[in-house]
């Protein structure tokens, strides 16, 4: 053993296992969404009966919705900054704002679905547009709800005084990664459904 030069002992400088784990989860989720996005693109304009996207989609509330979700990505960054400075008041304020913005997004999606179902009689079984739209947007909304549950858990824990900067900063950061991912997926979904899918 003594003759082995110590220069060969390269210390490992790997990232934390939590970061790798979350990155892998997000990677897998990307491929899950890819299936539904390809399905949407593949079935654009193939519905054998109405209603069609151009007849039912109202883009204005969706834009407001999207703005709220994208803004929530920035508010969660502000919350993390507050946490890093141990300023729990700032942290809680921005976390609350993030949850409110995410909640508004879900409310907007619910209103859009209500309009489709009640006013236009478009359900998942009406035509291919309904099938692909409700699955893609629905799975995204489901992920937003999961993210909201995680963020709310963190906020409640911090209000109970269970969030410690040194121990929990990485955990909160990983949840914020998930939230950014949900946001990024929405940009792709928005492009697919509300821009590409609106072509005549």
């Amino acid at each position, binding site marked *: 053993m003594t003759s082995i030069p110590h220069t060969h002992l390269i210390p490992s400088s*790997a990232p934390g296992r939590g970061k790798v784990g979350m990155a892998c*989860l997000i990677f897998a989720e990307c491929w899950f969404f890819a299936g539904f996005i390809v399905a949407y693109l593949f079935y654009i304009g193939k519905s054998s009966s109405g209603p069609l996207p151009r007849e039912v989609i109202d883009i204005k509330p969706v834009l407001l919705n999207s703005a709220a979700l994208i803004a929530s990505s920035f508010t969660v960054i502000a919350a993390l900054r507050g946490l890093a400075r141990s300023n729990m008041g700032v942290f809680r304020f921005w976390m609350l704002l993030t949850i409110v913005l995410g909640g508004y997004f879900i409310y907007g999606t619910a209103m859009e679905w209500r309009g489709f179902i009640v006013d236009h009689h478009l359900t998942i079984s009406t035509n291919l547009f*309904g099938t692909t739209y409700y699955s893609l947007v629905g799975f995204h909304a489901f992920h937003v709800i999961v993210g909201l549950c995680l963020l709310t858990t963190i906020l409640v824990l911090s209000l109970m005084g269970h969030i410690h900067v040194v121990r929990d900063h990485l955990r909160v950061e990983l949840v914020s990664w998930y939230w950014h991912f949900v946001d990024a997926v929405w940009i792709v979904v928005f492009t697919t459904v509300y821009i590409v899918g609106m072509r005549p």
Partner: protein
Amino acid sequence: MTTAPIHPTSETSMGFGSRVHSWVISVDHKKLGMMYIGAGLIFFVLGGIEATLMRLQLLKPLNDVLTPHGFNQMFTMHGTTMVFLVGMPVLLGFGNYLIPLMIGARDMAFPRLNAFGLWLFIFGGLLLYYSFIGGDGLYGMGGAPDVGWFAYSPLTSKAFSVGHATDYWILGIMVSGFGSMTTAINFMATIVCMRCPGMTFMRMPLFVWLMFTVGILVLLALPVLTGAQVMLLFDRFLGAHFFDPQQQGSVIFWQHLFWFFGHPEVYILILPAFGMICEIIPVFSRKVIFGYPLMVAATLSIAFISLGVWVHHMFSVGLPPWLNSIFAASTFLIAVPTGMKMFNWIGTMWGGNIRFTVSMLFATGFLVMFLFGGLTGIMLAVVPFDWQLSDSYFVVGHFHYVLFGGTMLAVFSAVFYWFPKATGRMLSEPMGKWTFWMFMIGLTLTFFPMHLSGMLGMPRRVYTYQPGRGFEIWNLISSSGVPFQIVGVLLLMTNIIKSLINGRVAGPDPWDAWTLEWATSSPPPSENFPKIPTCTSPRPLWDRKHPEDPDCFYE
């Protein structure tokens, strides 16, 4: 280094109930790995029984061992079991057991997630097999799934698959798939973050490299299958139209999604086998693996190219010729890195001081059988050839050479190689040699004639055939290989049980090997290493045994 492992003694002093309890609640990667392999081998026996029933039915023309419907259930359950409940868990189990030991870690990155993955797999498998009892649904139709392991639309639609057979197929595979994904996340995090000091990526054992690549492929391919299965569930339960041609849905779309998963899945099943061979051949040839960096590069290129070959499963669908040509070309291309590996293994054996232990015999058998299966694979990549032989017994012969002759022979080789490490006991070599020859004879008898009956025109998945078409003799020979394989399985099981009771004590390093799992006692203590090892070269244990001539001088 002086502290003796405490956990084997403390375990034998426990009662049976508390021993079972300690396994059920365990988060130790070694116990979980062994449970993966054990559960996989139980499903292997179930899948083997299904195959035996099929071979009995096809023994002679117009036989009536199975009903047509029963035959459909048997081939569906056989394929699904062997791919999802045998291949993946056994290989992931070996990864679970070996990765932390090989990289000098105390456990996986997320031990509790690891246990969660195992129990998801077991629950998914039980869910699939519960279909034999609960799949009848409201109309008393169904039972076990009967739509084939790739479950093509529109066979799976509500109209053609009444009852809940297909739902059990979807949910069973989906649940065990979630288990595989959590395990893949664990592999990635473990390999990236938990390596011992000095264990750089290019010093990792090739098995670890191969499992790393498998982790990427699992994370990439399985979510697509899960997505497709969710679409199918929506079609069946919510009246969606993803795969419903009456509403302009496309049945071909299912095939694209399934095979986009399905072809990387083939590599998920073969890359770990490559990894095992990469560890076993050098040790029994007494030579360093030939072309380590090239092996890594070939592995990564196989994984990359495997994403772009799936249409070769769909040549007979009638897709445009330019599309078929592209996928034929990419399929030829993937043979190049695979061929590199083949030559590297032969290059490792070349001029080596080969010891033909049972493990090495299986590894050599793997080289021969996998080469044969690989070559028929290249034949099937030729589009006109595929048009003639698609969905014939030629294809069945091809993929059994790859999956049984390839993956399973490598697994048997690995069982003989690492059993001493996991249990502290050697398997019987004479009995192992009988096992090897039983499998080689059985495999060749069963699967070689399938190529001939396929070329004569026998389609796969038919429950019987007419006399006088020239199929009789080849089917008779195929079925006659089954008893040999049954004897092989029984010999292996006897060997395992006998060796557990009174096998020769192995000691920490029975094969004079070089990787870190042999640096600790057999079986390893629950913390794996009393002191975290350090790594100075790709063969850390060689360095420790030969301090006057360590590997790191030649790096």
